[in-house]
């Protein structure tokens, strides 16, 4: 790899450090009774309220429709994710330091896999929460499910749920795109040189 590519790949992988401090995804709920908003942040290692107590209050609301309580400690992915992201950073740094192209390709491949698996996993959790409801719930509407949208907005009873990447999610996207482009142009130019 060229010097410039190594520098870019190194910086792109370093960008992933942002994921340790900011949420990767946010689900915001809107309803007339919540003019101040209520929502949650999905981090690589935790699910938290957008404001203190938001998660507690969302769980409180969800119990009416029989949704399981969201308990971050019971979601194993949240314990694995910090290591996976750490691995991606190490691979990226290794590619940058050694200049070995195949390490870079492997990193991109792993990153894309992580992204796909992560989205599928997120969808499945959402599906489970939205469909696997307590049959004795106070509010039961035949045919109604409460799965939040994977991405975008959706009306769920009195709430409109908005699901979008947060700062960490955008940082990951930028990291992947920049790293991939750098590798792509490095390869192109090296081919041209041949």
């Amino acid at each position, binding site marked *: 790899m060229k010097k410039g590519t190594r520098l870019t790949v190194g910086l792109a992988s370093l960008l992933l450090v942002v994921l340790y401090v900011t949420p990767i995804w946010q689900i915001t709920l809107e309803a007339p009774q919540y003019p*101040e908003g209520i929502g949650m942040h999905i981090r690589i290692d935790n699910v938290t309220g957008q404001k203190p107590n938001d998660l*507690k*209050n969302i769980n*409180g609301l969800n119990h*009416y429709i029989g949704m399981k309580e969201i308990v971050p400690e019971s979601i194993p992915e949240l314990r694995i994710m910090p290591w996976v992201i750490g691995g991606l950073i190490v691979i990226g740094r290794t590619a940058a330091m050694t200049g070995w192209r195949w390490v870079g390709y492997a990193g991109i491949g792993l990153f894309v896999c992580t992204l796909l698996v992560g989205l599928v996993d997120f969808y499945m959790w959402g599906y489970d929460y939205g469909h696997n409801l307590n049959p004795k719930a*106070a509010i039961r509407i035949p045919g109604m499910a409460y799965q939040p949208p994977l991405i975008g907005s959706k009306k769920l009873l009195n709430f409109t749920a908005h699901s979008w990447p947060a700062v960490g999610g955008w940082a990951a996207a930028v990291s992947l795109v920049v790293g991939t482009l750098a590798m792509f142009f490095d390869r192109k130019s090296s081919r041209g040189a041949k």
Partner: protein
Amino acid sequence: MSVKTKKNLLWGLGIVALVVASLAGCLSSETQTGSSDVASQVYVAPGSYDEFYAFMSGGFSGNLTVHGLPSGRLIKTVPVFSQFPENGYGYSDETKGMFMTSFGFVPWDDSHHPELSQTNGVPDGRWIFINGNNTPRVARIDLGLFETEEILEIPNSAGNHGSPFITPDSKYLVASTRFSIPIPQRDMAISEYKGNFKGTLSFIKADVPGEMDVAFQLVVPGFNYDLAHAGKGPSYGWMFFTSYNSEEAHTLLEVNASQNDKDFIAAVNWQRAEECVASGAGKDMKTSYYHNYMGENRIAVSTVKESVKVLVTSDCPDMIYFLPTPKSPHGVDVDPSGEYIVAGGKLATVIPVHSFSKMMDAIANESFEGEVDGIPVLKYDAVIAGEVANPGLGPLHTEFDGNGFAYTTAFISSEIVKWELGTWQVVDRIPTYYSVGHLMIPGGDSQKPWGKYLVALNKITKDRYLPTGPELAHSAQLIDISGDKMRLLLDFPMMGEPHYAQGIIADLLIDKQVKFFPLEENTHPYGVKSEAQTRVEREGRDVHVYMSTIRTHFSPDNIEGIRVGDQVFFHVTNLEQDWDVPHGFAVQGANTSELLVMPGETRTIRWEPKREGVYPFYCTDFCSALHQEMSGYVRVSPVGSTTPLAFGTGE
């Protein structure tokens, strides 16, 4: 004149009176509200905030009510000196202590004068204080909570009317005695009043929550001390108190206390009094008075104080001067510059305005016309700055707009008179409906009034609202004072009897509002942190129910094993951690009240079941879609029953 002619004449007069009255009616409906854009000036669109908070004393309700201006909307009632079954204040174990006095539990008072805390002479929005008139007390209300946090009883006092006026730095607020009494109290003939009964002027440390206390009291002649206001700017360090009944009458005061042409404003150099106290003057008088404070977990802690520092005039000869002031003065108000001291002589034909700088000169030159009980009486001509002529009948109270104008209420002629400081000329007047007492301009007694609105607080309403039997609402009237001419904008009814009021720009309070109490900080000895900790414990005949609430159930909601003759303590912790989600608790046959429990707090109500049976309890504050389901049962068994103690939810 025949009888018939007389009758005809009377009829004629009657018709003339009717015509005049209806003309007046037409006139007033046009002139009272001015032009048609008045409505838009008081219209606060749905969802929008008012510009000012207004705090109205509740008078005989013992409460403080909070309104928005300019809409006049009632936003909140803050219970202070009266039990309030609406939320359990004064009934719950945590709040009962707030009413402790040296006379025992006193669950009512007459609250007259709210006073905002100040910094640099301007309301700062930390606290508002209010007096209890009947059993002398002062209270501090926290303006992040809108709850009464502290009540101090005033010893050696009766009729705590001239209170709680505050210094520009909130160092002291004062309490003066409307009724002079034997000090210390003793059994003696009322007819020996003159020379033997005394008044007191108390200076109370106000600026540290939990540490309100009487710093010192001045014993003064046995007049009736009425109202007060602090000096500011150049007159900082002085406090001015009106007095009437310098005759020292003890019966039929309406006549016997109205004989002297002039009574007095007592000008007190409180910084001088501080120096005297610091140098060891005065004595520590044994007495007994209560201090009640919402301490940890906002549980009232009552402390008895055994002694108070008392100064008589000979202890500190140059701390008080009397300013002669015409005819039983009521209000005393200091203009924003601190130079002018305006008195409302309720039977006077002029408004006398004293000059602080002239007063200081008169003291330096010893321009005295005599003395009373060792207190020098300054010469009227040596201290007077000017007299406002033709101020209306029965001038009572004055506030200021910060633009060089003063506004004085005239009770008897039922109007507000606007006049100019310095020229003493009346420039405008507007009728009030009817019999105005106090008035309030937001910040109008401070160094920087927000001189946009004026609120007249009227004693009589007669025909202003839909009639409601013998007792009618008192009223407030909002008047626009932003232009040269005052304009009446709005009438709105008051709860109880408003005396004084205070106003503050809303921005100073909005962001500091407490939304709920963090559960992790709740260390109430009978509180719970989660449903898992809820339980019922018996200690002899006392049964403690550690209960929780969360949308939408109680835990426990079924309780058995209670017996007739037990005393059941329902300790209810609201586990919610969101704004505006209180839960209520009420149980059938309780001889107390309900509880309204804010998120994160614990409140306790006692219940003594009288008869066996099964009694429901329920949430009283519509908390959620399933609020009606938020209920439970207590089973009460006969005395000596062996029904085991059992409790649970959802089993």
